[in-house]
């Protein structure tokens, strides 16, 4: 790589990060908006730029199944998908996590059918939130590139051994071109290292049975071990990010707090919408309002301690969910943030807004209106708005 900087779409950056990681096996099936990741990667394979076995399967179900076979065999396995593709993988996602296979998957977030919609929202990965995968949500293309390079280290860490999804907003990040600072191929190779599993299928001298049946006498313990591994990932994700930061100068934590130090009100969000909210926060600050923003980079494991530490002192908070959970008060992020704040000695008033479904833009004016409602609730001049939809007609 001669240029240190490049203008890349999110998909191109994901493919480039994968080229530098150079997984042993990639299995993939195309779906909008992530298709370009594997198209670009396939060109790398065609050009002989990577030594990766490409398994071009007939469905996403088979893509994840092949990743399970490859990872269990001892290979570093990666794939990419979106939306319906992730939904079709659903069954195998649980198996990948249950077998403790460190597969890494780039997910360009997209709405789920019906109605058919190819545009961005986070319903797809929210539907997989209990599958046992680590879920990291990125704000921009640079963070996508950096996070994908960190993902194998997190997944394959002996204290973790769990698959990782790196989630980036469909179109907003997958198709938008941004300036990305790239790392040297060798530097990435050194950082990610070689995957050397303790037990693997191809070790014919030491045969193991993978994927056995566990009856009620053992199943619970296997599941608890997954939970414990996910808890340990709370330590390992920042540890890997810290090492990445020390080597390459860009640090990423479990959360991104923006102007929260002295804030009274804040919005909480996942993904690229943080950029919009930071603009709104700046405008609020200009007129003297103590506004801030919290973005969760990790949703699984859920960074409860940071969330409580950062949000409990505030007066009013709005949770922006880019996925709904019909039949509950609001979206999944809202539920979980309210839940972890319950035990805090003091806690803010909390509102929930479902926004951005099926690619609908969040306008600065709409986000500002939410902040203004928080401002009134913080001042005690109005009640906090009940949970609802941001920008929905009739």
């Amino acid at each position: 790589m001669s240029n240190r900087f490049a203008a890349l779409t999110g998909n191109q950056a994901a493919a480039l990060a994968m080229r530098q990681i150079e997984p042993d096996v990639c299995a993939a099936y195309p779906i909008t908006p992530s298709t370009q990741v594997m198209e670009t990667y396939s060109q790398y394979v065609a050009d002989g730029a990577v030594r990766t076995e490409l398994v071009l399967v007939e469905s996403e179900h088979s893509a994840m199944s092949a990743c399970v076979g490859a990872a269990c065999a001892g290979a570093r396995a990666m794939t990419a998908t979106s939306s319906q593709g992730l939904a079709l993988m659903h069954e195998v996602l649980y198996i990948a996590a249950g077998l403790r296979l460190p597969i890494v998957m780039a997910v360009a977030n997209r709405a789920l059918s019906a109605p058919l919609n190819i545009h961005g929202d986070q319903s797809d990965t929210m539907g997989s939130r209990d599958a046992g995968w680590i879920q990291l949500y990125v704000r921009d293309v640079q963070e996508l590139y950096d996070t994908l390079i960190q993902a194998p280290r997190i997944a394959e860490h002996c204290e973790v051994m769990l698959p990782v999804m790196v989630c980036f907003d469909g179109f907003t990040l997958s198709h938008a071109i941004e300036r990305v600072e790239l790392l040297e191929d060798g530097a990435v190779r050194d950082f990610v290292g070689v995957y050397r599993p303790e037990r693997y299928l191809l070790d014919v001298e030491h045969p193991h049975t993978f994927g056995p049946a566990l009856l009620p006498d053992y199943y619970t313990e296997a599941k608890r071990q997954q939970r414990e591994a996910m808890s340990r990932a709370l330590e390992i994700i920042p540890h890997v990010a810290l090492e990445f930061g020390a080597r390459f100068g860009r640090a990423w934590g479990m959360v991104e707090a923006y102007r929260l130090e002295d804030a009274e009100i804040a919005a909480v969000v996942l993904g690229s919408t943080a950029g919009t909210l930071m603009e709104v926060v700046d405008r609020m600050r200009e007129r003297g309002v103590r506004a801030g923003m919290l973005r969760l980079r990790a949703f699984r494991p859920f960074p409860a301690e940071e969330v409580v530490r950062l949000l409990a002192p505030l007066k009013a908070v709005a949770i922006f969910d880019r996925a709904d959970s019909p039949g509950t008060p609001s979206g999944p992020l809202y539920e979980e943030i309210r839940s972890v704040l319950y035990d805090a000695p003091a806690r803010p008033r909390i509102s929930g807004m479902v926004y951005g479904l099926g690619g609908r833009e969040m306008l600065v004016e709409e986000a500002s209106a939410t902040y203004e409602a928080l401002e009134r609730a913080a001042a005690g001049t109005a009640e906090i708005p009940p949970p609802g939809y941001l920008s929905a007609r009739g």
Partner: protein
Amino acid sequence: MFQHKTATAPVSLKKLAEQPDLLTGGHRLCAGCAESAIVRQVLMASTYPVVAIMATGCLEVATTVYPATAWRVPMLHNAFENAAATASGAEAAYRALRAKGRIPDRELRFVVFAGDGGTYDIGFQSLSGALERGTRFLYICFNNEGYMNTGIQRSSATPLGADTSTTPVGEAVLGKPGWRKDLTGIVVAHNAPYVAQTAPTAFRPHDLKNKVARALEAPGPAFINVLSACTRGWRYEPADTIAITQLAIDTCYWPLFEVIDGKWHLNYKPKQKRPIMDWLSAQGRFRHLLKQGRLVAEIQARIDSEWDTLLERCGEAPVAAASVPPPRKAAGASD
């Protein structure tokens, strides 16, 4: 046509019996189940180290209940419908890691074990995909003609008229409507280099083993459809598994053949074809059909026609039907 080692050097049954079992005893398969015999024969037929991939089914739940395992070869079970795709991934990993020098540089073989449910039905797409991609594996289908692991429901391998728990015999319906799917033919249509049908028998004890050995030399995907008698689902006494299997072959209900590089070969031609009634009357699942003369004649006609087609494909002359049917074996059937 590719070369194969074992055709010239058959190993005696005595020698084979002295080999260590790669699937140990003590597993939980039913008495009389053909599956363990098939797995052991497959594993003993390979001169290469085998990596097994298994679909969910009777074999999985009976041989891997944690913390025990009956497997002495590496085995991966993923889910019900994705054994072929899983094998594609494992085989791709094998090629990648071997090329990079991360595993010893030697030949391994990938063998999938899946039932007819996991192959004919829910796993059909995954199988078709792996065949088209050219995954180098041997896919063994244990065809026991139904969803036996979940309690004997019909599959698309279930024969016409069979009594199953989802095609029960009633006043209005006489068991499973419709003929079984010709999966072996469908696999042949994928141009896989090696495709065969076989079954564990006493009269041709090397048939299964030899086919496995040939399949493992195939340069691409190999598929063997193995009839796997099920004492519970077919309703016969456990001791009769091999005898029942023999009837399937002698009635031409389940012919033994191979298709190597698209060329059809018949492995066994009975001198006289036994009537299909011998097959039907030996099993409780067909008991209700025995007095349905027209339906039995219809089944016979279809079996005859399929057999004739097979003979033609294999370039064989037709076989006379037995003029006097041998005595029925209905006494062997149980409910």
